[in-house]
C-alpha cells in the first residue's frame, strides 16, 4: 500500500491540490481531505466503465474503431468536435489540430456554462485575480447566482469565505453576501442574503453601479429589492478594503446572459475607482478553463472556432455547438470527455442522433448510447496525467495514480492515433 499526497482532484474548477489517496494493488482504496464528490470520483471511477471499443454497438479492435473515426471525420463537410472540459490540456491541443485538419467546428462546454462570461469580457474586460488574493485580502465576498456549498464544496473553506490568509484570518473577519433566487445552502451561511426576482440580475447590477456612482434611483423597487437597500449595499461595497464577487450560472444562463456579466464587470470596474474589487467566475468542470486557454493560444479564440475555411473563425451564436446542432448544420461529430445528450435541449439531441457520432469516454453515458463509434479511454487525473487550469487560470499538473485497464489508452494517446491516420488520409 502506498500513499500519494498533494493529488489534484479532477472534478470541479476548484482543482483542490491537497488530496491524499492510498493505493493498493492498482486501486484507490482511501481518499483523505477530498469533498464528498471527490471521494466518490476517486473510488468509484470503475462504475459503468467501457472496456472495449464499439462500432454500432459491436465490439471491435482499437484499430478498427480509429479507422472508422478517421473515415467519418475525413468525409464530413462540416464536422463538429465538442466536449474537452474533462480531459487534459494536452489532449485538447491535439483535438484542435484535428479540427484544423478536417475543417471542423471546435467547441468546448464553456459555450453552455461560462461562454457568456467570455462574451461579456470581450466587450468590457474583467478585473480578476487568483484565488489566493481573495484568501489573503478579501474582507467582503459576494456569491451571485452560484452555490459553492453544492457545486464547489471546498471553495469557501480553501479559497474564499472561510479561508485563512495572510491579512484576513478567517470567516469572522469577512462579510459574506449571497444574491440568489432561492435561499441556497450557501445563502444560509451568509451575513446578508438578497433574494432577487428571477431574470432581473441585470437590473440589480445596473442599479448598484448607478448607486455606487451616487446616482438617484427613481424606481422604489428594482428586481424586488427596495431602492434604499440597494443604496446601503452600494455603500458597503465601496467601504470594504478588498471585495470579491464570485458568480455562477445564475448570471450566465438567465435572461441577459453575457450582458449580465458585462453589467457585473462594469460594476466592479466602477468600484475600483473607490476601493479594490475583483470578480471570479465559478467554473464547473475541472479543465473547462484549460480548454479556453489552449484554444485561445492555438487559435486566438477561447471556444466556438470554425475551421471550415482553413483558418479560425469565431462567432458564438453561429459557431457554438448547440446552435450548430439546432440548425442541423453539422454532418458528423467527435465528442470527447463530455455527455451533451444528458444536458442539451431535445431538438439539439434529435439532430445529434441523426449524424455519425464518435465518442471518447471512460464511462457509459447517454451520448455513448447514440454514438456510432465509441472508444473507451483512461480517467484523466487517476489513470493518466496532464495539465489542467483552475477556475482562476492557475495551471496544475494532474497525476497518474494507477494503471488504466489493459488496452485502454488516454484521450491524448487515442487522439494522437486519430491525428496520425488523418494526416495520411487527408492530403
Amino acid at each position, binding site marked *: 500500500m502506498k500513499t500519494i499526497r*498533494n493529488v*489534484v482532484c479532477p472534478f470541479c474548477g476548484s482543482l483542490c*491540490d*491537497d488530496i491524499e489517496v492510498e493505493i493498493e494493488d492498482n486501486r484507490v482504496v482511501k481518499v483523505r481531505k477530498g469533498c464528498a464528490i471527490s471521494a466518490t470520483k476517486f473510488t468509484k471511477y470503475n462504475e459503468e466503465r467501457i472496456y472495449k471499443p464499439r462500432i454500432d454497438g459491436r465490439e471491435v479492435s482499437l484499430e478498427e474503431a480509429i479507422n472508422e473515426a478517421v473515415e467519418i471525420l475525413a468525409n464530413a463537410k462540416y464536422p463538429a468536435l465538442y466536449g474537452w472540459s474533462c480531459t487534459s*490540456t494536452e489532449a485538447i*491541443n491535439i483535438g484542435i489540430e484535428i479540427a*484544423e*485538419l478536417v475543417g471542423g467546428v471546435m467547441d468546448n462546454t464553456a459555450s453552455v456554462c461560462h461562454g457568456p462570461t*467570455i462574451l461579456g*469580457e*470581450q*466587450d*468590457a*474586460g*474583467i*478585473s*480578476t*485575480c*487568483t*484565488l*489566493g*488574493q481573495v*484568501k*489573503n*485580502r478579501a474582507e467582503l465576498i459576494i456569491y451571485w447566482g452560484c452555490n459553492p456549498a453544492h457545486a464547489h464544496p471546498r471553495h469557501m473553506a*480553501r*479559497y474564499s469565505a472561510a479561508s*485563512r490568509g*495572510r491579512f484576513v484570518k478567517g470567516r469572522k473577519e469577512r462579510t459574506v453576501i449571497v444574491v440568489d433566487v432561492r435561499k441556497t445552502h450557501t445563502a444560509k451561511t451568509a451575513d446578508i442574503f438578497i433574494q432577487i426576482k428571477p431574470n432581473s440580475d441585470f437590473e440589480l447590477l445596473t442599479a448598484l453601479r448607478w448607486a455606487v456612482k451616487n446616482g438617484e434611483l427613481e424606481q422604489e423597487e428594482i428586481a424586488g429589492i427596495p431602492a434604499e437597500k440597494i443604496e446601503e449595499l452600494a455603500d458597503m461595497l465601496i467601504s470594504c*478594503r*478588498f471585495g470579491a464577487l464570485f458568480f455562477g450560472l445564475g448570471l450566465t444562463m438567465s435572461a441577459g446572459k453575457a450582458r449580465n456579466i458585462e453589467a457585473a464587470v462594469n460594476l466592479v*470596474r466602477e468600484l*475600483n*475607482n473607490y*476601493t*479594490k474589487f*475583483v470578480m471570479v467566475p465559478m467554473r464547473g468542470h475541472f479543465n473547462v478553463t484549460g480548454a*479556453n*486557454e489552449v484554444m*485561445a*493560444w*492555438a*487559435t*486566438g*479564440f*477561447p471556444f466556438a472556432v470554425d*475551421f471550415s*475555411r*482553413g*483558418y*479560425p*473563425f*469565431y462567432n458564438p451564436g453561429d459557431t457554438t455547438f448547440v446552435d450548430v446542432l439546432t440548425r442541423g448544420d453539422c454532418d458528423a461529430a467527435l465528442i470527447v470527455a463530455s455527455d451533451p445528450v444528458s444536458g442539451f435541449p431535445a431538438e439539439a439531441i434529435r439532430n445529434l442522433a441523426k449524424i455519425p457520432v464518435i465518442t471518447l469516454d471512460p464511462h457509459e453515458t447517454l451520448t455513448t448510447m447514440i454514438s456510432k463509434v465509441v472508444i473507451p479511454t483512461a480517467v484523466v487525473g487517476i489513470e493518466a496525467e496532464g*495539465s489542467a*487550469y483552475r477556475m482562476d*487560470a*492557475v*495551471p*496544475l*499538473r494532474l497525476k497518474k495514480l494507477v494503471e488504466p485497464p489493459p488496452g485502454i489508452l488516454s484521450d491524448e494517446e487515442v487522439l494522437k492515433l486519430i491525428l496520425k491516420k488523418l494526416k495520411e488520409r487527408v492530403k
Partner: protein
Amino acid sequence: MELLIKNGYVYDPINKINGEKMDIAVKDGKIVESVSSDAKVIDATNMLVMPGGVDIHSHIAGSKVNSGRILRPEDHYKDVKPRTAITRAEVGHTVPSTYTIGYRYARLGYTTVIEAASPPLKTRHTHEELNDIPLIDKSCYLVLDNNWIVLDYLSQGEIDKCAAFIGWIFKALKGYAIKIVNPGGVELWGWGKNVESLDDQVPPFDTTPREIIRGLCKINKMLNLPHTIHLHTNNLGKPGNYRTTIETMDTVSDLADGKPNIHITHVQFCGYGGDSWITLRSGAPEIAKYVNNHNHVTIDLGQVVFGDATTMTGDGPFQFILQNLTGNKWKNADVEAEGSAGIVPYKYKRKNFVNAVQWTIGLELALLIKDPWRVFLTTDHPNAGTFMKYPRVITWLMSKVAREKVLNKINKRAKKRSTLPSIDREYTFYEIAIITRAATAKALNLANKGHLGVGADADIAIYNINPMEIDPSKEYKKVRRALKRAAYTIKGGEIIVKDGEIVKSFIGETFWVKPAIPEDLEKDMLREVSEKFKEYYTVSLENYIIGENELASSKPIAVKTNL
C-alpha cells in the same frame, strides 16, 4: 547535414566583421571552419548576411498574453492565413496565436525571443505556450520583485536565503532572469494603491522600491546569473517619470564592477518629461546623457509604431490609469503573493500629441545613446506596436529622410518640442546588426547566439539586399521590404524560411538557468518557504514545481553561484 552560404556580405559585430564578402560553413547545426564538397550551397551573392535576430523583450507567451488574445477577438478577424502542408493556421494581429508568433519571427530572420514577464505561479502556462511556438528558441523572465517570500527575506535582511530562494525558483520553474516590475507598487496594487517614489514604504513589508532593486541587483550577482536584473520602472507611463528612471539607474551604480548590472526595459514608457499630459516632453536627452556617462546600464527602446497595439504589463496600477484615460475595455489579473497583470487595447495616432511625443522618444534614445552595444531594438511587443514593425523602425534609424517623412505627418506641437528633427545620425547595417542581434545576445550572455563565429549555433538570416550598393538613407523602402521577408532564415542549420515563406517547421529549444545552491542553505530555505507557502498560496509547493518533462525541448544552463 552541411550547408555553405557563399559570397554573402556578412555583418557579425561580435567577431568584428563589417560587411565582408565571405562564406559561412554549417555542419550539424553549428558554424564550422569548412564543409565537404557535398554540402548544400546557398548562393548569397549580393545579399546581406547576419546572425539570426535575438529579441530581448517581447510578450509572446503566458497568462497575460493569452488574456490579451481572449480579450480581443476583434484583433484576429482580419489577420488570418489558412493551414498549409507545413504550417498551422495563422491568426491574430497584435496578439497572434503561438504558431503565428513563431512563423512571423522566423520570416523576419529572428531565431531567439524571450518572454518578458512570467509570474511564477503561472509559469507552467508560459511553458505550455512556449512549447507551441515553432522554430525560434525561447525562454522567459520570472517576475520576482513583488513576491512575498522575496519581500519577507529582503525586509529581514536575509539576503543569502533570498538568493537561495531565487536560485531555487529558477530551477523549479525553468526561467532565465530576474524581472522587476514597478517594485513595491504592484504589491500595493493588491489594495488598489501604488508607490510614487523609490523611497515609499511598502507595508506591511519593511522595505522600499530602492531597497528591493538594490537587493535583487546584489542577488543577481551572488547567483552569477547570465543576464542582469531586467527592470520595468516605478511611475511608468507618467509625465516627468524620466527622473525616476535615472534615479533607478543610479541607485545600483555603486554595485557595478565595470560591466552592466541593470537593464531598463521599454524606456520610451519611462522617458517622459514635463509634469502633465499637456506639458509632456521627451526625457530622452537626459536619459541618453546618463547612459552615455555610465556603463553599468543597458536599455531597450519600446519604440512606438503608429496603429493598433495591445498594452499588457505586470504593472496593474499603470494599466488601471490607462483604462481610465482611454475608457477602453480593461482586464486586470492579480496573482497571489506575486504580482499582477493588466491589459488595455490601444491605438497610437499620429495626430495625437502624446502619441507623437512617445514616437519621438524611442528614436531619440536610439540616436542619442552613442554605444549601440547598450541600446536594443524593441517595441515591447505588443505594447508599443507589434514586432512585425521592426523593419519599419530600423529604416527610421537608418534614414533621416524616412524620419522626416513621418515627422511631417505627426502632431505639430509634438514635432516642435522634439529634438529629433535636429539629429542627423543614421545607423549603419553594422550598428543595426548590433542592436537587433549581437548586443542582445551579449546582454543575455548567450555565447552561441548573435554571432557567426566557429562553434556558434547556425542561426542565420539572409536578406535579399546588397549593402554595398544600396543607400539606406534614400532607398529605405527597399531596405524595409527586404527585412520584412528574409530570403533565407536558417535555424540550427536547417533552412526554415525561403523567400519569406516557411519551408520547414519544428519546435526550438527552451533554455533556462540552473544555479548551483549549497545543499544545507537550500534545505533551510525550503523548510521556511514550505511553511510560508501554506499561508500565502492556494497550491502546494510540490504542485508549484514544473518538471523538466513539461518542456517540449528543455535546455538547462548550469550556473556556478557565489553563494
